[in-house]
């Protein structure tokens, strides 16, 4: 359809009409934008659920959730929505779709129509999850209250209503969406790099998405299998995979779930690693330090991430030798993670750092990820984990790597590429207001939770002894501040979109040197009709 132009798409910006453009979209940039809008929408739902939980927990006693089951529903849905419908769509669907083709010099993704399918499965999945709120879950009420981990028997005989069936269908749809996306990214990255761009010259964000895509491809089928087995167990007279009365074992589900669940953690954080690498390099005005080490550290994290799953299950009654293995294997992950942290520091060392908004997010990411990482080392020790497992210490740990790791990575990428994606610049004071309130807010939420966990407060409790009151109150004040911060986020985005300060092609300067910065802001509807030839410079 599009004529083969002499240069990069100027003069044939043949955008389809609105409906065809946004609903039949096969353009990677439009699909990326749809993913980002979808992630923000899901983030509002997931965030609302968490603020409601913090409001409940601000004081001992039952404040809001007089129907106790609803609290468990909120806990479960907060986890599922934030993971499958906020973080993953943002980092992989959103930034991955937008910037992998641009960075590797490809005109689009390898399978544009499958890309469209990947996206549109997600709203269907989210609708299934939202329906699950309003239909019978168990005798206790509407919605599914078995946690995002969905352990049987609570998810089989414990939740006989249709609510959990909707969640299974929704997660299968989301899982297939991710598998299709993974196939697309792997094919694109392996086959469609610009002439001259060998895999060892590929930008680190493309590396991170490549590793992530392999993790998705290998992990999600296991989740799909586990969900199908749950479905079979739930049917009257069906299978008994996880039912001890019929020769099954509830712990088998936990193994299957965490075989998916632990790589899932890296699926969420690896693209953030990629984004942070580019931002640190751009604003230190230096090429990334130890490029190959950075790339292969991500590969190592991905590989080791598949053989440590049972550290989520130290207290289920595993054999001690098995626990010893998982203990040792888990500690190994600290090594490539340390390589990444130190390489970022070395990239900044000797640099000429400008503290732009994305750089502030990146610096905060590095420091807070270290805190989340070292508490992970504590938890890896199976002996210590006996005291901390399923307490608020774990909640604090994984929110430091997700709510501060992955989410800071998302904001880092969003503020870095906002002008490139939408062609307009934001007000940096408004964006700084968002950053600082968010930074302070999430730390106030989650740091005191370490203390709660060490004192023994279990997770997923709607009410707690008043001995835990102080830190819960502090934590809830932090949530209030974070809630205000989310409003500041929308303020700077909407302000930028209304005022429309035109973004130049490369508004970050010469060290933003990946291929997306050679294009206009926003890039032409079809780019790289003539493939760029990648020059042999230190371009990482």
């Amino acid at each position, binding site marked *: 359809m599009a004529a083969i132009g002499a240069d990069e798409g100027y003069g044939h910006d043949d955008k389809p009409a609105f409906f065809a453009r946004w609903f039949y979209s096969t353009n990677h940039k439009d699909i990326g934008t749809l993913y980002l809008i979808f992630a923000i929408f899901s983030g509002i739902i997931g965030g609302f659920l968490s603020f409601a939980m913090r409001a409940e927990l601000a004081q001992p006693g039952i404040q809001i959730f007089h129907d106790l089951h609803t609290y468990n529903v909120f806990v479960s849905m907060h986890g599922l929505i934030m993971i499958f419908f906020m973080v993953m769509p943002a980092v992989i669907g959103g930034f991955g779709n937008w910037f992998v083709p641009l960075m590797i010099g490809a005109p689009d993704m390898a399978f544009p129509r499958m890309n469209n399918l990947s996206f549109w499965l997600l709203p269907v999945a989210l609708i299934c999850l939202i329906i699950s709120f309003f239909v019978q879950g168990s005798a206790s009420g509407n919605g599914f209250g078995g946690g995002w981990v969905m352990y049987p028997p609570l998810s089989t005989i414990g939740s006989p209503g249709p609510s959990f069936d909707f969640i299974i269908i929704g997660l299968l749809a989301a899982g297939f969406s991710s598998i299709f996306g993974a196939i697309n990214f792997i094919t694109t990255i392996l086959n469609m790099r610009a002439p001259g761009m060998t895999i060892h010259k590929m930008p680190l964000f493309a590396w991170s998405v490549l590793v992530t895509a392999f993790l998705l491809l290998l992990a999600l089928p296991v989740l799909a299998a586990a969900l199908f087995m749950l479905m079979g167990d739930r049917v009257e007279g069906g299978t008994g995979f996880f039912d001890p009365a019929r020769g099954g074992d509830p712990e088998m589900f936990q193994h299957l779930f965490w075989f998916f669940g632990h790589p899932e953690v890296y699926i969420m954080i690896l693209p953030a690693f990629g984004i942070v690498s580019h931002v640190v390099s751009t604003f230190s005005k230096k090429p990334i330090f130890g490029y190959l080490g950075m790339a292969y550290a991500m590969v190592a994290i991905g590989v080791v991430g598949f053989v440590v799953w049972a550290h989520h299950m130290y207290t289920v009654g595993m054999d001690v030798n098995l626990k010893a293995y998982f203990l040792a294997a888990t500690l190994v992950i600290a090594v490539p993670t*340390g390589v990444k942290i130190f390489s970022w520091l070395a990239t900044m060392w*000797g640099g000429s750092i*400008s503290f732009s908004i994305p750089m502030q997010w990146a610096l905060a990411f590095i420091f807070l990820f270290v805190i989340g990482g*070292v508490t992970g080392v504590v938890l890896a020790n199976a002996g210590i984990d006996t005291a901390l497992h399923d307490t608020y210490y774990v909640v604090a740990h994984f929110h430091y790597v997700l709510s501060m790791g992955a989410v800071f990575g998302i904001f880092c990428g969003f503020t870095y590429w906002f002008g490139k994606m939408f062609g307009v610049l934001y007000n940096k004071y408004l964006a700084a207001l968002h950053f600082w309130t968010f930074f302070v807010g999430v730390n106030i939420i989650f740091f005191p939770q370490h203390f709660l966990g060490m004192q023994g407060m*279990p997770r997923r409790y709607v009410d707690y002894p*008043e*001995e835990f009151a102080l830190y819960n109150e502090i934590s809830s004040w932090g949530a209030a501040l974070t809630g205000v911060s989310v409003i500041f986020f929308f303020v700077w985005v909407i302000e930028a979109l209304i005022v429309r300060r035109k973004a130049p092609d490369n508004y970050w300067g010469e060290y933003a040197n990946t291929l997306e910065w050679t294009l206009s802001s926003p890039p032409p509807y079809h780019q790289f009709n003539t493939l760029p030839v990648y020059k042999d410079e230190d371009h990482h």
Partner: protein
Amino acid sequence: MRLISKVALTLTSLMMSGIAMASQPKDGKIGFQEAVTPVMEELIRFHHSFVFPVIVAITIFVMALMIYIMVRFNEKANPVPSKTTHHVGLEVAWTLVPILILLVMVVPSMKLLYMQDRLPTTEMTIKVVGHTWHWEYQYPELEDKVEGFESYLLKKEDALAAGKPYLLGTDAPLVVPVDTKVKVIVTSQANLHSFSVPSFGVKMDAVPGRLNETWFQVNPGKEGTYYGQCSELCGIRHAFMPIEVKVVSKSDFHRWVNNGGSFSTNVAQANIAAPAAAPK
């Protein structure tokens, strides 16, 4: 205001925490509950003397480096960036040093793990059964004297009346003798639960169809009441099935056993017959 007074209280309790002994969670306290078994003592020793100092040192090291970098290498202080992108020695060092730290860490960690998990020759056995939503305790070796009994959460007014903390206190505590190696068999009747007593360093999932084992031995002189809470999501009343363990002297335990599971002579079976206190 309430917050400020609490923060002040916290600081005081922090300073006192060296001597303050907790058999239950303490508001504003940082750190673990008091250890009363060798396993929990070893756990705290390993955490406090090794893991915690290491992670604090790493965090401070990274923070100090970042502050130095931000001061020394910002665009005002250092207008011309260097071009260094490789340094093999450095890259090898930051791979090997963490490996060394972890190798040193893994030894005491394994020691703690095996101490916790390998049961010594135990002197008595209790069986813990998780129900939706309360606990049941049985004494298999003593069953001709002590019947198994169920332990429910005390309602708020009953807890206050009994002088027990609400959401921790129960109508019928698990009773065990001090200075005795107790094997704990944990299972569940329907849902998953987790039997957890922080002061003992015990947390073991209750899984239907499985008998999980763990053990504890309360140190001499540590008679008292210890509390724990269900630690695996089990449904609507997950937060309302606490664990209360009453550790008594060996002679009191014999009296309790010979009295059919009661300390008082005239209210025999008091532990079993307490349906009034059971919720719903």
